């Protein structure tokens, strides 16, 4: 005799309802979703698969993640401490990685804890000087590394943390540990704007190629702070992961208010396509890229074509049938067909639209192209 019916019939209506609620929910916040599902932080997250989860803005105090897969977890403004159980959890490349290493070290060396307390409670300038001096002299000392890192994490003075983080890389044995340290700093102290900005800058400059860092920078693109958005976008555009996610970033950037950031985005997407596309969207007078919110009218296309001819010529590219200045002037009354450099620029713009850049091309030009 069969044991039971199909699995779908085994799930209670309450479970199905919960799943539908999660699906329809507007929030992505881990705490909110856990509450929505009625999950118990002390038992339900043990041995669970939480790899890649975004813990931004979450309070993880008293959560039990025993044996869980937390690889690649990221987030900012994450609250966790010794009450967050990470025993036997897999935490590589996550915001938790560094905490585990540090906890083990200070457990093994209680004297270092005392030393740390003394340096950490000193005047902020002395603390920074101590870190700078020791970073140069004792870059192989475990003792220094752990004390300095803990100061960076726990010192109450923002100046100490933000200044020191920029040269802390000197003392880390590997870039992975340095990166994990910054991720941890960001997760724990992300509410502090100066720490957040400094951490993001270092991450964007040094570790933009890392997937977790890329995700963090991407999530910052939707924030309200223009300066942080700028740092994040620079990091995103420089990252190799951007190539695979152009349309995703395009969706976010479409609503961007800062013209400079929009132009940077256009330039980066064009650069992926090649020199022709860069020349097609580069403005000669400012050397900046075209802002996609500006409609591509007939006169704009003409200007872009002229820029294109200039840059391409300068670069030694052969252009087919580029219009001369005189021909262009003779068309001041309006041209009747799209050809030459205009055609090539338009083709480039269409390629970029296909990549997700929301250029708006004037109807008149579209009609001419169609004819």
């Amino acid at each position, binding site marked *: 005799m069969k044991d039971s019916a199909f699995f779908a019939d085994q799930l209670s209506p309450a479970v199905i309802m919960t799943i539908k609620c999660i699906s329809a929910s507007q929030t992505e916040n881990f705490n909110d*979703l856990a509450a929505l599902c009625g999950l118990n932080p002390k038992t339900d997250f043990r041995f669970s698969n939480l790899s890649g989860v975004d813990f931004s803005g979450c309070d993880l105090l008293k959560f039990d993640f025993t044996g869980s897969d937390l690889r690649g977890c990221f987030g900012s403004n994450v609250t966790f401490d010794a009450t967050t159980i990470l025993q036997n959890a897999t935490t590589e490349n996550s915001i938790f990685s560094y905490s585990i290493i540090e906890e083990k070290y200070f457990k093994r060396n209680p004297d270092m804890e005392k030393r740390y307390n003394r340096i950490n409670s000193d005047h902020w300038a002395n603390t920074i000087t101590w870190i700078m001096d020791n970073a140069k002299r004792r870059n192989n000392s475990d003792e220094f590394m752990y004390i300095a890192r803990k100061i960076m994490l726990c010192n109450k003075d923002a100046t100490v943390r933000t200044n020191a983080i920029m040269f802390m890389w000197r003392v880390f044995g590997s870039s992975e540990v340095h990166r994990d340290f910054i991720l941890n700093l960001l997760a724990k102290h992300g509410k502090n704007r100066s720490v957040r900005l400094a951490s993001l800058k270092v991450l964007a400059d040094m570790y933009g190629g890392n997937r977790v860092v890329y995700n963090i920078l991407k999530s910052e693109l939707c924030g309200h702070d223009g300066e942080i958005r700028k740092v994040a976008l620079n990091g995103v555009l420089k990252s190799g992961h951007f190539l695979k996610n152009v349309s995703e970033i395009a969706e976010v950037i479409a609503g961007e208010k800062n013209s400079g950031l929009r132009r940077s985005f256009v330039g980066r997407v064009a650069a992926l396509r090649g020199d022709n596309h860069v020349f097609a969207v580069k403005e000669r007078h400012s050397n900046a890229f075209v802002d996609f919110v500006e409609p591509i009218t007939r006169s704009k296309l003409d200007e872009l074509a002229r820029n294109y001819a200039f840059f391409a010529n300068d670069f030694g590219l052969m252009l087919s049938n580029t219009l001369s200045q005189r021909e262009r002037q003779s068309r001041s009354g309006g041209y009747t067909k799209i050809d030459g450099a205009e055609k090539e620029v338009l083709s480039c713009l269409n390629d970029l639209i296909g990549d997700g850049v929301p250029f708006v091309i004037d109807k008149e030009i579209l009609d001419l192209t169609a004819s």
Partner: protein
Amino acid sequence: MAPKKQNAVPDLVELIARLDISGSAEQCSALKVDLRVGSVEIDEECINFKVSANRLILDINVEGCEISPGTRFGEPVKANNIVIKKTSSTEASKNHNLRGNIEAKIGTRDFDPSIEIDGGGGAESKAMTRIEVSEEEVLLRVRAKPNSRWEVQEPDCKTELSGTYLNDTQLCQLKATMAANRVGFNAKIICNQRDLLFYISGGPISRALNKSRMMGIVVAKAISGDQQYKGRLVLSEVEGEMESQDEG
């Protein structure tokens, strides 16, 4: 007595276990096991998802008996001999520099014969030793682990489990201990939530990782049924005992 079996999600994991005394040595019986693994799908109005597993633990508890040594299935013994190949190569180069210079001036006023001979020689030698250790590793899908457990996993540790892994296979032999009133066993298939694979297809939810992970936990908790869920699920459980020879 027929074994008592309980498969929480029969479409996902089916475990059958029995004791076979035929052909076994005296006081011994073979524990034979069937293990089939599949996947289950839910297709609701707005959501479609599939659940499968990539790692399972088969946990055996015995009563009134013990597992006979050397009878465990899937237990390759590590080779005692490890072959170490040592390759030594020596590169040697020698440079000899011999320069001769003979100068002789003969004149009336002076006679200054001088002979200059420089001899220089250099020898360099580099020695390299390369050690190669070769050891064969056997990849098994069902592998014996300590504490009477067997781990079921595909060799790459990622691929979902699918198919029949044990088909009336003798997992081990049980030997009754002296003066045991009852010889029985309890076999469980245990799965950690993290080893359950949860695929959501279609809709915006498939891209929302936080939601997807949370759903995975909700479904795992639902599968665990009445048990107090702590991240581990017992997907199947079979209990059986050896029939007494005196009976009947």
